[in-house]
């Protein structure tokens, strides 16, 4: 090969790198390991982090994933394919994305979904930028964050939008939920509301949707996609429905995996589609009139529009979307519905049992779904720590960090994976730990 190139050695191939740039020094990097040794080292570390029952949610949930989901998703043809720019060589991925878009749009009750963004948090940022572009005639760039929207999402969104002259106006929750009457501005450009909200409470989404529409504000719905099998989809909220729906797809067949990779989904009414970020697949025909799929509306994207693109986003979370599409196909209508309702029933059972100890009671009175805030008698920080160190159980999220008035509160959930025996055991330990503490 060197002969064909006409050089004596490989070093000569680097002769355009100026000599004044020092040669890289990799002494700090250790010698290579075999696969066996590498796996041994990392397995030891993974083992250290293994825990038992999980009663923690707050945006990442411990659901069952059918074995077939990842067996199929990690087939080399899905795992090692690139972005489907060469449509004829990527019909598998493209058709799958089209099916994914259909499922997500239907869950959200909206017209169109994109092929995913990075995660729910950055998805909220993208949704806000999209809404502001779509509502250009509004007189300001003020975004109302209504009550208990996931604080991790809000912080992330803020990083992404703050340099575009966009202002996030936080309206504190009133007894756990968003009350538009408390909103200090009457002319928001965009309103963001989460259903169920960060505390698991159900917002009065019909009234909020109408309130936003009366002010010509666009409405962004932040949702957990699994709950949409049971709850009214954002596209049907109020008289006109939400404009944009975003969330994290983790509950749809993606392991918690420390928060990533997961995927964000983004759905909207058709009238906003040209402001959407990210890839979108369309169905069309080929030269023989046969049905085929291709990326479409690419003129919105960075590789064509450059500085004027709807976003700088390039990659999507293709592999996770593959898993989610397979998950939703295997679960189907009843599987998804029953999983959502079972999560709710388990959480209700957990709440009832904890309240029965007399050491905890619901912090808010609005109806909740799937997740709940409990005010506890005792130090919730110490409780969650003891539960991990002594029993390997994740006992929920202490909320003091997010809201001082909730410093004795825990956010908990019990997914469909939690058995009554596990819940009973947890309740007993909870009771005992607080008694001793």
């Amino acid at each position, binding site marked *: 090969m060197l002969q064909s190139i006409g050089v004596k050695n490989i070093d000569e191939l680097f002769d355009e790198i100026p000599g004044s740039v020092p040669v890289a020094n990799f002494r700090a990097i250790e010698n290579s390991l075999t696969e066996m040794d590498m796996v041994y080292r990392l397995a030891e570390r993974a083992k250290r982090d293994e825990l038992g029952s999980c009663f923690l949610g707050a945006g990442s949930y411990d659901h069952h994933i059918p074995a077939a989901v990842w067996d199929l998703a990690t087939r080399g043809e899905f795992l090692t394919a690139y972005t489907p720019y060469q449509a004829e060589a990527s019909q598998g991925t493209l058709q799958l994305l089209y099916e994914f878009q259909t499922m997500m749009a239907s869950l959200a009750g909206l017209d169109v979904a994109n092929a995913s963004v990075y995660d729910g948090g950055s998805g909220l940022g993208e949704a806000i930028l999209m809404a502001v572009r779509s509502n250009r*005639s509004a007189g300001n760039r003020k975004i109302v964050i209504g009550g208990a929207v996931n604080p991790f999402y809000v912080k992330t969104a803020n990083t992404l939008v703050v340099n575009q002259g966009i202002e996030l106006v936080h309206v504190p929750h009133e007894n756990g939920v968003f009350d538009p009457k408390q909103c200090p501005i009457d002319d928001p450009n965009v309103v963001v509301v989460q259903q169920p909200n960060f505390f698991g409470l159900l917002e009065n989404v019909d009234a909020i949707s109408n309130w936003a529409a009366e002010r010509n504000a666009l409405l962004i719905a932040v949702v957990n996609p699994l709950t949409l099998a049971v709850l009214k989809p954002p596209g049907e909220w109020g008289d006109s429905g939400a404009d944009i729906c975003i969330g994290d797809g983790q509950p749809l067949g993606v392991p918690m995996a420390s928060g990533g990779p997961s995927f964000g989904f983004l759905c909207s009414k058709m009238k906003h589609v*040209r402001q959407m970020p990210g890839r979108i697949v369309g169905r069309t025909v080929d030269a023989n009139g046969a049905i085929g799929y291709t990326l479409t509306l*690419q*003129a*919105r994207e960075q590789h*064509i*529009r450059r500085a*004027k693109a709807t976003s700088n986003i390039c990659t999507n979370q293709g592999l996770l979307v593959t898993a989610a599409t397979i998950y939703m196909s295997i679960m189907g209508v009843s599987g998804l519905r029953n999983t959502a309702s079972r999560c709710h029933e388990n959480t209700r059972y957990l709440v009832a049992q904890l309240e029965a100890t007399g050491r905890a009671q619901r912090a808010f009175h609005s109806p909740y779904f799937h997740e709940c805030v409990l005010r506890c008698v005792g130090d919730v920080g110490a409780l969650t720590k003891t539960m991990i160190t002594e029993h390997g159980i994740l006992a929920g999220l202490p909320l003091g960090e997010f809201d001082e008035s909730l410093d004795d509160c825990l956010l908990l959930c019990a997914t469909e994976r939690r058995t009554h025996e596990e819940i009973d055991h947890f309740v007993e330990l909870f009771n005992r730990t607080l008694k001793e503490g």
Partner: protein
Amino acid sequence: MSETPQELRYTDTHEWARTEPDGTVCVGISDFAQDALGDVVFIELPETGTEVAAGAEVAVIESVKAASDIYSPVSGEIVRVNDQLTDAPDLVNSEPYEGGWIFVVQPLSDDPNADLLTADQYQEFCETDSNEH
């Protein structure tokens, strides 16, 4: 060879401008430009009533592989837009100088065409432009 009607004026960003009997200026993109762009799939039209300066971005025209800004050749107010293009963007390809017009400006100046290229100047410009690529 693309068509460049003699009676129109042009810009170096490939718009054409036609002064109507009522003094307004109708704007579209040239035959040369539509050919270079390929099949047009979407046009983002401006809103009527918008004040524009000559050279300002007014509309966006998209083909499958490209997006181009359309600049106003003259200063004034947008008084009409071609709503037909919403459903039939291909008019820009099939009749760039007739049904494919994009918007109409009520110009501020009495002689809005003064700074624009003549058909011959524009044709010459296109020839040099395409040789460079």
